[in-house]
């Protein structure tokens, strides 16, 4: 038992040494003057975006309606996750399984109905 916790202890030590080591090293390098005088240029100061050149400012406002769309997307994404296993065993679960699946889809259908009636699907209010 204790031996197994020892392995976690080694992980803990590494997890501590790594950031502390990085901080100490960068602090120590401050005393070694190996940097060139002029270190700044426009390309270097640019935002790093996976190597692509950035377009426009980074403080862009998103329409809050994406929030509804994202919520609905998650809902139906999760629905699909549950429907795939149902589809796989569809021929084995019989009528009971069929109606359980139907009621699940039905409840989610009511969800769409609710979202539609509450005008969550309209882009403009």
């Amino acid at each position: 038992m204790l031996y197994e916790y020892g392995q976690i202890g080694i992980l803990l030590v590494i997890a501590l040494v790594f950031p502390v080591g990085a901080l100490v090293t960068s602090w120590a390098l401050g005393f070694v003057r190996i940097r060139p005088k002029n270190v700044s240029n426009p390309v270097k100061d640019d935002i790093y975006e996976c190597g692509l050149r950035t377009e426009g400012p980074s403080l862009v406002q998103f329409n809050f309606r994406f929030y509804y769309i994202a919520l609905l997307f998650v809902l139906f994404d999760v629905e699909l996750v549950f429907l795939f296993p149902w589809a796989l065993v569809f021929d084995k679960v019989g009528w009971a399984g069929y109606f359980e699946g139907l009621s699940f889809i039905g409840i989610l259908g009511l969800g769409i109905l609710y979202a539609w009636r509450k005008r969550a699907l309209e882009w403009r209010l």
Partner: protein
Amino acid sequence: MNGIDVAGPQIAVLGAAGVILLVDALVPQQRRLLPFIALIGLAVSALWTISWVARDDYQTAFGGTLSLDHFSVFFYFLFAGITAMVVLASIDWVNREGRGQGEYYALVLTACSGLMFLSAGRDLITIFIALELSSIPQYVLAGWGKDVRSSEAGLKYLLLGAIASSLLLYGMALLYGVTGTTMLAEIGETIAWSGDANRSVLVVAMTLLIAGFGFKMAVVPFQMWVPDVYQGAPTPVAAYLSVGSKAAAFAVVTRIFFEALGARFLSDDWSNVFAVLAAVTMTVGNVMAIVQTDIKRMLGYSSIAQAGNFLVGLAAISVAGGEFTLGASGVLFFLAAYAFTNLGVFVAVIAISQKIGSDQIRDYAGMWKRSPFLSLGLAFCLVSLTGIPPTAGFWAKLYIFNAGIRADLTWLVVVGVLNSLVSAYYYWGVIRQLFTGASEDSTAIRTSPSIGLSLGVAAAGVFVFGILPMPLISAARDAAAIFAQH
């Protein structure tokens, strides 16, 4: 199909929540029917529970994760009743607020089903999911109001609740790691079988569980959120939090600690922890309540102090020897009495504060002349909170302190009685304001039928169980007896 039957009370409540959302979305002109749909759903749930009592065929479902027994049936009735009272007390406020009426009742009902699942869960995963099912709607409800305070209450409750959930989950993970199962009964068996080999890990797990549920039970030192959330949240929601989620947390703590952690070498530990927490919680809650000028904050601290009283029952368990369940039945009886009493207080506060537009205790002066009904109801329930006959609160305190004495916790009972004296000071302060203070405004306050009904039911419950406590006590004993096979 059997599982659906066993979970019927919860499904009825959830179904009502769905119907409410649909009615709200499809026929918005019929909005005033929404609270009645909620009440019908709760009535169906209670009838379903009654049908199980009549069948007298208690059983488990979903692989033993959901248990229908005397204990969960007791709480099904309690939660259906609490939620019905909260719905009744909310009608005025929700109508005035105007927006999101369907969502409000749907969230209240969803939280109710979560509370019911919580009291019936016999598996750590079921318990955790039920806890989230009841908590998440309550976070939303706490932030329902449009003012900054309500938003602050919602956010504070959400953040602290998330921390508490993670502590709880960590404790559950440790329990699973030691025993290799999430079923409470099997955890208990494994611990009994393996003895105290893993005692240190179990103690850590136990501490984390107490911390996680301590947040919901609102015991010191996990009580910081209570006054702020009660003050900021809409008053009906504060009433719901103070009674519903507290009762569910005590239910699940009782079940976990008795069924899974009931082994002698552990129960000695946790009953000591609960005894110390009880003393600290009562004292801090009562002392802080004295200096409050806002009645909702005062009720927040008073509910912390009452949680300390419940803890006496949990502490009185292991040392009681033969009468293992005396403390547990005391907790259940106290919870039911407290539910009636505290809901009565909150309903009266809702009615009065809505009319006078203030939560300050000094603005309650002279309320006796403006509304005798509300004043009498509020005063009677406050008397019950103090624990003076002929009220349910008196028997609750007597019963739970008796359990404490039998368990050789005399010091704790002395602390409890002294604290009752302290609490009398601030409860009677409110009563004095009601009856003797003078107010410049003397217009009569008219009580709406729904508020009147819920306050009447609460006060009648406090009175009837104050005169005839035996039916409730025997129900609590039956419920606690499921743990007696140890």
